[in-house]
């Protein structure tokens, strides 16, 4: 049941931010909603309700590392699309590997070292 609630909460928040991204102009402004804290809002709300503040704080700290990985990912996707002229699907799917490398690399260096 908990996962159903997570699924519904995440789907609703993500869809709401995605719709905002669709209708807002200029496109560069709408792009900000591509990095909106949609999954974060849904997950942290549930974490705060169920596990409490300390647990959510640890997730928040890791979210900072994840957002650094997202910055690297976005930069890479932008460069690949501009320079190599691949499709958006190819660029975003291949670059997901970079997100994992940066996120887990930074976590290891900053938190686990």
């Amino acid at each position, binding site marked *: 049941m908990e*996962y159903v609630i997570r699924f519904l909460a995440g789907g609703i928040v993500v869809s709401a931010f995605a719709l905002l991204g669709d209708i807002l102009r*200029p*496109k*560069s402004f709408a792009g900000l909603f591509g990095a909106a804290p949609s999954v974060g809002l849904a997950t942290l709300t549930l974490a705060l309700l169920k596990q409490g503040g300390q*647990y959510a704080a640890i997730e*928040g700290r890791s979210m*900072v590392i994840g957002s650094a990985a997202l910055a690297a990912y976005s930069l890479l996707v932008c460069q690949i699309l501009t320079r190599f002229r691949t499709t958006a699907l190819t660029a975003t799917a291949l670059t997901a590997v970079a997100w994992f490398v940066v996120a887990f690399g930074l*976590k290891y260096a900053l938190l686990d070292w």
Partner: protein
Amino acid sequence: MIVRIKWSALKQSKWYEHAVRFGLGGLTTALTGAIAQRYGPATGGLFLAFPAIFCASATLVEKHERKRKEEKGLQGARRGQQAAALDAAGAGWGSMALGVFGVCVWWLAPASAVGSLCIAAIGWLVVAISLWGVRRRLRRVSWSRHFRF
């Protein structure tokens, strides 16, 4: 350029495109919870900034822009890629604001649950809009330097 709402953009999207984003968003949130339970909040928290729906969003942006050009009888492939690249650049700037959201929760959640989320959401919005303004100003300066008459 002023930020505005273009309602007609909603007509470009099909119902299944919304369903895909809903499904991906829900799946990522559920998976993030499962990862946090299995490997702890330090690992699960990383996925709060995972670009789960970015793949679908960028593909949609590319497709809609390409279609728009092709309807006018023009080659839309390159324009679609440029629009997706611009979307990615926006997400890159937005990720800094996402980091601010994380910092607010990290520092404030132990003291106040609801307060931390409210401050984090407001902080995200303020930083995201400010960074967008800075980016626009930087682009304008670089443009005027390159094209001085």
